[in-house]
């Protein structure tokens, strides 16, 4: 008698398996197929084109009822199996009991419904089967309907693009920092997001869903940041959950999926399993290629042939019309990488290499060579011979270092000082201005601060071609050939608001920068987009991440702020108590008029801060590229010679400026008379009080170089001093290169230009002050108070684990 084979699940994996089995030996088994859906097998990965209207259901059917009938497979569609009885080798379904000799479990997976309130409201839809698609298409019929897609992975983005095609207003909420983070790196994720946004799809990353809101059906999605996103439907595409209930209930070994060996055998010798419901070698699969490999292996196992499933390399392509994207392999696991970017065309390619062999490929914008690279990866070909031109693909082409400038539109502003756009410069060049000096004279571009000189030269080069040779300026690090000044201007003029955006649009040569460029870019983002950009602590040097100054032995120094160098007996007692309590080995009085506690252990930092906070003190930022101290003398309050209240003015300045981030550290001094006891004339900003008012000077230095300040302006009132100081510091924040102290920056742009901007142009001064204040609305806060909290204790300050507590074995 024929052996009885029962298959649970009529999806793609079981369809392929039956095809293979019938081809190997059509008469091996008497086959019964159970399917929970009321139809046969269709190509589930083509559901997206059905949703977008590019295909119909009939076009994606692979095995219909006729095919099964013709091959002698008994179909029990629309009939869910509720129990496997392993002892008696039978299964139980609505139609009764069915006996088996061999059983194949192919129950697939279900959408993972994120566990928040309201996830069961009508209108919350998964994206796994045709019924889901039908429900979405129904919702899309409503004019101006709104859809929220939770999950920015492959499935979620295909759903979002398709619903957008159907005329819905779509918002994608993604938990992680960039789209498709399992397949793409941040650069490719950025390009993808830009493309989707250009189609009108809203994309919100780092979106933590708090609840789905609605009374009798879904109305909106609420995020943790309290923003709400109205929705007529919510598509759950946050991942899949292997459908393992039958396996668990019947006692099969099940982890995340039903565990199978290389032959697709479960822990029961008469039960096999394949597809998205299984786990093989700690891995669960969701893409079709490995499932087909499983199907071939399982079919051979069923007819008694030896076969073994081996996890294949899996490549990913997004099925969204007009988006060219390819990803394969473990592009995280590199020893070396080769990166190619063409900002003009929006192309990004990255190859990761291990031992002269390709181990991963990410491509965006141009995937023509994807198979060429994929073949080399699969065959582990040694590429050392063609390494130099590898990234250009099968048809090698040169890279254009001027692509970023060439890609700019004519109305992109090149010179911020004089408001000169690229088009104006190009017109001047075509009119005969073929060198920098003539361009300056004709258009005024780069004629003021000179920061944009490099860009103007690049416009000359792209317009004139070989007739103009760009004087070589060194890039800020090995990741780019652009200078700090170029980068700042391009960030401003093309409104780049994230580090991945900068790296792509300016053609970075590495995938995520280095310790030189990342802190600079993070600063430029903070300075340019204070309200929109979120500070990236991982791009900061240790001192600014830990809010303390690291010492040679890995301990830290702690220095509370003493406003204007003033303190009180209570503050001194609290500092002394902290020094005792935390066994501080050294206490030092600094040149900036405050007290430094040296040699503090990292783990003591938050507790020490909390103690100092409790005594009314805040961080002195004695570690930051930001406002350090405002040194003062006692002025007219006590001194026989004092002409003004220098202490009071110093305190006012410090309270306005503290917490601000600057390209390098900033120190101020306010002296009450020309005897200059506060040594104000070697500071970044120095104020000397005189009988008639105040003399404000800038750009001094007393470090590697010694420089006296140069006069900025005379002021009659304290408010004028404050405005001049704030405007000067804001101008420095907006235009200096990262790690240039003010004296270096002023030497580059010229004091005349600074005076023009800050002193002579009153409107500009007011605008600078206003922008500073906007930034301070975010950054004028005590980082100690913020980080001396229980949350930070567990997430940051504590060790991840303490193995010294484990008993010796």
């Amino acid at each position, binding site marked *: 008698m024929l052996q009885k084979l029962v298959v649970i699940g009529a999806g793609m994996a079981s369809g392929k398996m039956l095809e293979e089995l019938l081809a190997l030996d059509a008469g091996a088994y008497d086959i019964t197929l159970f399917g929970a859906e009321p139809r046969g097998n269709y190509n589930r990965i083509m559901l997206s084109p059905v949703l977008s209207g590019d295909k119909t259901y009939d076009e994606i059917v692979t095995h219909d009822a006729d095919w099964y009938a013709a091959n002698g497979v008994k179909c029990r569609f629309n009939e869910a199996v509720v129990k496997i009885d392993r002892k008696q080798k039978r299964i139980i379904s609505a139609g009764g009991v069915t006996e088996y000799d061999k059983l194949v479990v192919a129950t697939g997976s279900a959408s993972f419904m994120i566990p928040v309130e309201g996830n069961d409201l009508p209108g919350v839809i998964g994206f796994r089967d045709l019924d889901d698609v039908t429900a979405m298409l129904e919702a899309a019929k409503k004019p101006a309907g709104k859809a929220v897609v939770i999950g920015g992975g492959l499935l979620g983005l295909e759903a979002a693009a398709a619903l957008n095609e159907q005329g819905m207003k779509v918002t994608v909420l993604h938990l992680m920092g960039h789209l498709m983070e399992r397949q793409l790196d*941040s650069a490719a994720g950025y390009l993808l997001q830009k493309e989707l946004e250009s189609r009108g799809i809203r994309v919100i990353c780092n979106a933590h869903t708090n609840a789905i809101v609605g009374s009798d059906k879904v109305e909106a999605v609420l995020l943790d940041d309290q923003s709400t996103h109205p929705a007529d439907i919510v598509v759950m595409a946050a991942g899949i959950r292997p459908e393992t209930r039958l396996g668990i209930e019947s006692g099969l070994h099940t982890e995340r999926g039903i565990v199978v060996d290389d032959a697709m055998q479960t822990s029961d010798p008469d039960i096999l399993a394949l597809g998205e419901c299984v786990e093989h070698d700690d891995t669960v699969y969701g893409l079709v290629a490995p499932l087909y490999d499983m199907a071939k292996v399982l079919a051979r196992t069923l007819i008694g042939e030896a076969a073994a499933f081996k996890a294949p390399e899996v490549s990913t392509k997004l099925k969204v019309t007009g988006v060219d994207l390819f990803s394969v392999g473990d592009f*995280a696991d590199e020893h070396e*990488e080769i990166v190619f970017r063409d900002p003009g065309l929006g192309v990004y390619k990255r190859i990761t290499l291990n031992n002269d062999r390709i181990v991963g490929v990410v491509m965006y914008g141009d995937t023509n060579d994807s198979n060429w690279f994929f073949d080399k990866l699969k065959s582990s070909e040694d590429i050392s011979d063609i390494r130099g031109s590898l990234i250009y693909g099968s048809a090698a082409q040169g890279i254009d270092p001027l692509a970023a400038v060439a890609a700019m539109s004519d109305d992109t502003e090149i010179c911020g000082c004089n408001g000169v756009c690229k088009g104006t410069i190009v017109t001047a060049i075509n009119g005969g201005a073929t060198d920098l000096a003539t361009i300056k004279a004709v258009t005024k571009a780069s004629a003021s601060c000179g920061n944009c000189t490099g860009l103007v030269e690049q416009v000359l080069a792209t317009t004139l071609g070989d007739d103009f040779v760009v004087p070589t300026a060194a890039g800020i690090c090995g990741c780019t050939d652009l200078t700090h000044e170029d980068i700042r201007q391009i960030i401003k003029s093309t409104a780049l608001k994230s580090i991945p955006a900068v790296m792509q649009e300016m053609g970075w040569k590495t995938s*995520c920068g280095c310790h030189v460029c990342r802190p600079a870019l993070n600063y430029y983002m903070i300075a340019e987009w204070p309200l929109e950009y979120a500070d990236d*602590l*991982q791009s900061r040097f*240790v001192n600014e991440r830990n809010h303390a100054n690291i010492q040679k032995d890995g301990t830290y120094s702690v220095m509370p702020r003493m406003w204007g160098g003033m303190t009180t007996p209570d503050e001194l007692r609290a500092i002394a108590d902290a020094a005792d309590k935390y066994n501080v080995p050294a206490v030092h009085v600094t040149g900036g008029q405050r007290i430094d506690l040296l040699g503090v252990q990292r783990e003591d930092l938050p507790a020490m801060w909390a103690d100092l906070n409790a005594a009314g003190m805040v961080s002195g930022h004695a570690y930051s590229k930001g406002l350090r101290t405002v040194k003062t003398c006692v002025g007219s309050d006590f001194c026989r010679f004092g002409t003004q209240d220098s202490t009071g003015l110093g305190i006012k300045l410090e309270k306005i400026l503290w917490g601000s981030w600057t390209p390098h550290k900033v120190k101020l001094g306010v002296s009450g008379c020309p005897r200059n006891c506060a040594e104000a004339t070697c500071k970044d900003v120095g104020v000397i009080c005189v009988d008639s008012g105040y003399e404000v000077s800038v750009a001094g230095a007393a470090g590697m170089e010694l420089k006296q300040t140069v006069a900025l302006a005379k002021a009659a009132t304290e408010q004028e001093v404050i405005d001049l100081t704030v405007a000067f510091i804001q101008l420095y924040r907006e235009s200096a290169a990262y790690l240039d102290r003010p004296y270096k920056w002023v030497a580059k742009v010229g004091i005349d230009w600074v005076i023009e901007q800050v002193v002579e142009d009153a409107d500009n001064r007011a605008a600078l002050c206003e922008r500073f204040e906007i930034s301070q609305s975010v950054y004028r806060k005590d980082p100690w108070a913020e980080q001396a909290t229980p949350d930070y204790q567990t997430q940051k300050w504590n*060790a991840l*684990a303490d*193995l010294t507590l484990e008993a010796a074995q």
Partner: protein
Amino acid sequence: MSNWIDIAALDDIQPRGARVVKTHLGCVAIFRNGEDQVFAIDDACPHKKGPLSEGIVHGNAVTCPLHNWVIDLETGMAQGADNGRVNTYEIRVKEGRILLDGARLLARSVA
């Protein structure tokens, strides 16, 4: 023989960040790169013992916060012109949990 110890959840470490595990013979730094891979190396730069766990992570490397030596997280080798190496330890991520090979750590403390 391996002896996998469950250390923490992957999400307990920031992407491009690091935290330490205390052992009897000093701290081991656990790194997570931008692509969710983890690495375990001694938390002391071969140059002047700087705490590598406080460095900036880029690609599969970290820059020491004291004097900018760049250390490869996979091999523990100093990059560029600098010479030196730190110990590396077996580590893996399974179902969102970080597992560290305790056998190797223990062998070190016996040696």
